[in-house]
């Protein structure tokens, strides 16, 4: 195991064994065979640092926070040490024209080879005027940057599916990356925010195998998003037994029963929280007593309320009043027509005589 990376790491005090251990864990999380850990380590150690451009659009920086504040910055940071992060507004020292220049330079120098990471959705309303950088709209910048990228990684639910900016009524006309970039491979890493190891895992996969991991029908890496929260939830046995917490402070909640009735979206949410957990494996939402919000699924914000059970309606009385009025109006209309018809029939009644009984 030799190469520029391992040397860099060694200089930073990261030992070879630490790196091997990290790769073994990463491979395990990505559901790769155990032997892949070593292969990953070998490959990554020798890799040339690819250029990465990170474009933030309509976002909250939560995705960046998630990755930079992860439990062991040196390990997660390791991956970032393997890449040449040429543009990241939040992290880079440069600002203004300098920063834009760095981006332009990186794009020119690595045309067709750089990885493009996007977080945040892209507003299309008012010609994209809702979000601009250096006087240029997000959609403009994205199109330009995607043009020379080898692949695009949409980090976070906003970039993947539009996220909160796209939530009803979507005032800015926000769309996900996949609505704009059609000719490049896109990996979606949804989550609000996404799990750090998932982000690094995808990068590691790209660095190791030179390709993107296998994706599901929503463009997410199957290795992390293959199963639902519900399928891997430690509270699942309670669901099967029909034991549900009814409020957040009842006996069921204290006993750690299933949170389905409190609106948990676990059964319909694909993510790795239940296995990878958060904050260095400390806990995750359900373990902390709160149902899954379904943040890694498209349109989770409009899924009918976080505290409404999946079997409960989102907003079923939306048209009720209007429908009742229309129904009553139709009924009254028909009623008038019927009465007119019947009265006419009565008015034109000809008294029947015996002669009317025969043809």
């Amino acid at each position, binding site marked *: 195991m030799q190469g520029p990376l391992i040397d860099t790491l060694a200089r930073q005090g990261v030992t070879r064994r630490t790196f091997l251990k990290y790769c073994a864990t990463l491979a395990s999380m990505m559901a790769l065979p155990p032997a892949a850990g070593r292969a990953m380590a070998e490959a990554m150690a020798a890799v040339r640092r690819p250029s990465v451009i990170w474009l933030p659009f309509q976002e909250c920086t939560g995705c960046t926070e998630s990755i930079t504040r992860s439990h062991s910055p040196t390990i997660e940071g390791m991956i970032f040490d393997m890449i040449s992060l040429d543009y990241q507004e939040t992290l880079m020292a440069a600002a203004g024209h300098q920063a834009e220049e760095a981006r332009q330079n990186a794009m020119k120098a690595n045309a067709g080879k750089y990885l493009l990471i996007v977080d945040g959705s892209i507003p299309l309303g008012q010609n994209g005027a809702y979000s601009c950088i250096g006087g240029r709209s997000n959609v403009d910048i994205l199109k330009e940057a995607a043009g020379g990228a080898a692949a695009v990684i949409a980090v976070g639910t906003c970039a993947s599916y539009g996220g909160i900016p796209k939530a009803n009524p979507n005032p800015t006309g926000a769309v996900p990356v996949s609505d704009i970039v059609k000719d490049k491979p896109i990996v979606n890493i949804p989550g609000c925010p996404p799990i750090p190891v998932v982000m690094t895992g995808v990068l590691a996969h790209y660095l190791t195998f030179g390709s993107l991991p296998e994706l599901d*029908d*929503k463009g997410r890496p199957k290795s992390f998003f293959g199963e*639902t929260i*519900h399928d891997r939830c430690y509270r699942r046995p309670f669901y099967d037994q*029909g034991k*549900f917490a009814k409020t957040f402070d009842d006996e069921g909640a204290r006993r750690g029963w299933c949170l389905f*009735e409190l609106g948990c979206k676990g*059964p*319909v*949410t694909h993510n790795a929280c239940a296995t990878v957990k958060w904050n260095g494996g400390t806990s995750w939402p359900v373990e902390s007593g709160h149902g899954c919000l*379904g943040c890694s*699924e*498209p*349109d989770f914000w*409009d*899924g*009918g309320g976080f505290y*409404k*059970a*999946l*079997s*409960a*309606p*989102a*907003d*079923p*009385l*939306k*048209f*009720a009043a*209007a*429908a*009742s009025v*229309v*129904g*009553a109006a*139709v*009924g*009254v209309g*028909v*009623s008038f027509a*019927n*009465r007119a018809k*019947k009265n006419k029939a009565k008015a034109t009644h000809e008294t029947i005589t015996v002669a009317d009984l025969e043809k």
Partner: protein
Amino acid sequence: MTDLQFLTWTRGPGLDLAVAVFLLGVLWRLIEIYTLGRKKDLAAPRHAPGASGLHTVFRRSLPPPGMLKRSPVSYIGGYVFHIGLAIIVFLGAPHVLLIKNLVGVSWPTLPSQFIGLTAVVTMAAMVLMLADRINKPVKRFLSTFEDWFTWAVTFLPVLTGWMATQHLLLPYTQMLALHILSAEILLVVLPFSKLFHGFTLFGSRWYNGRVNAHKGVPV
């Protein structure tokens, strides 16, 4: 459309639409039917105990003497599936949760195992009723497309609901979505088919009871 989007649609816009069509249909049909009016009965009434519209509304819930023996399948099967549907719809936990969300009132529910069992019994009774409809000359003779269609529309929500809770055939997300969709189809079809008897039977029994009560006959 993905599973979750399908489910979200059925829980959201789909349900909106179905409830809207249901309310629209019910009001329209009720007004259409009951504003046709009827003539006042000018004959001097005869009063008899137990003879009134209201009496008949309740009395017709029980088989008249001798009828249970003549058509046991219709009565027993009918009772079982109607009562079964009522138990499932009004005492199943997710349904009560739905009602609570709709109108704000809730009440205690029955264990899901019991509801599951009720669903099986209900489906068995419905299959029996279907077999009876196919076998019995009178029922087969009377049956139109609507009879088969409404049977299916009523059966599907029970089947999909049961399959969703038992985790059969399809993933929960999909089955739940199909269950809600089938219930929505039921809501949409109800006002415009014979299923509307759920509303009009009260009117019909009342009219029958009243017309005959005028003559002093408790029917």
